[in-house]
């Protein structure tokens, strides 16, 4: 029986060679504390890109 993160992989199908997120990666995507930190980081990165573009 395949693990949750691998359940959609089909042998030698289109998605056979890609990566899928494990439970930690999926948890972090919706972890409010971690995402708040990422929100700050991403915003700062985006502001740098915006500044470099003007």
């Amino acid at each position: 029986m395949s693990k949750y993160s691998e359940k959609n992989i089909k042998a030698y199908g289109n998605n056979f060679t890609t990566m899928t997120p494990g439970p930690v990666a999926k948890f972090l995507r919706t972890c409010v504390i971690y995402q708040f930190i990422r929100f700050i980081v991403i915003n700062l990165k985006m502001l740098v890109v915006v500044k470099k573009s003007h």
Partner: protein
Amino acid sequence: MARLVVLGGGVSGHTAATFAAKWLGSSHEVVVVTPNAKWNWIPSNIWVGVGLMSKEEVTFDLASVYAKAGITYKQAKAVSINPEGGSSSDKPFVSIEYTLESREGDVEDVEYDYLINATGPKLNFAATPGLGDENGLGEHTVSVCTADHAVHASQELKKCIQKMKNGERQKFLIGTGHGLCTCQGAAFEYIFNIEHELKKAGVRDMADIKWISNESFLGDFGVGGLHMKAMGFAVSSRIFAESLFAERDVDWIIGAHVSKVEAGSVDYELLDGSVGKESFDFSMLIPPFAGVGIKAYSKDGEDITAELFAPNGFIKVDANYSAGAYENWKASDWPATYQNPTYTNIFACGIAFAPPHPISKPMSSPSGTPINPTPPRTGMPSGIMGKTVAHSICDRILKGEDAPLHRASMAEMGAACVASAGKGIFDGTAAAMTIYPVVPDFDKYPGTGRDTDYTFGEIGLAGHWIKHILHHLFMYKAQLKPGWTLIPE
């Protein structure tokens, strides 16, 4: 008193007009000619297309905003440009035809000192048989290109969800409707919003969802893909995109030119020359873009459209249109000032300027059908271009005709984009990405063509929050509310 005429009131034209009006003040005139009564924050049409937002939340009336800004607003479409004037005057002018209900069909010649063409695209549904009627509300497919289209898409989606609740399995086909489409990002965002909404509705197991696109690899996005740093690797957007598709059980067909759309099916040709047919119950296929079809005439009435516009209907600017084969392409081919080389008081920005060549590597099937994304010029770059062009023109009006032009090459600017999947604050996931520069510069950044310190992407709730903020900030900014100039394009 100088008069600046801006054709188009979308992201680029609206940005250009509003900044020009602010910088020029009341001693000069800014005129906006746009066939639409409302401004539309197009990125949020995706949420309208799945029923998470109403049309009213992504649009507002232009008339009151332009009245407040001191901009002369003509609800009309441009028909032709006479850059040398006409028989009675040397003053250049544009011929416009009103779309305002009370004046529908009236024509007028509007003289200008400077002209910005920011018309955006014609949604060329006709390029693919069966893709849509002239309004874009296809018989067989839906679209999210305008707020009205997105409302229609949402209604059709609801019907499908109801069918699935009644036990009827449904097949969704989302992507691009022609081999030369752009805006893959919008379709990408829409497919994952649909997947998310089906999950929320409890009918995901009744749906087969498939992507069809002209990209040669998933994650090309019309910019030849990108590399972002993750876990110590420079990871291709192909891995990033394929991972999303695999995780959400969405299958894909890539390198596809959709050649015909019929009720419940599309015919397509692939890059390897094979052909196929794909069935669907619900399909959203982005149409290809073309110029809006403005003609140009010389002083003696000769048709000079081919001189002013490229064959695809977009206006020629300071790009290198003779780069030729892919091997010769340089970042410096891309325009920086958006000034027409022949008529120096004409500028173009946003989708309206003719790009020198695609950003993605050009490809075609063995039968010669070109299948590659055309370059995106929407969103953040189009706003920056609009502001830059307005800056150049205002300088020339206020400081003299020799004032240097401002620059904003897509090969020197970055872009931030957020693709949501869902709209909730605590559910769903969104991909937040930046890309720098938009057009890869392989001389400056050998290999990936981009600076991987400023090109990144990640998935999570933070992207959702940013998308919400962007929606409200840009709706606020476009309505010229207090402090609007502090919000970057």
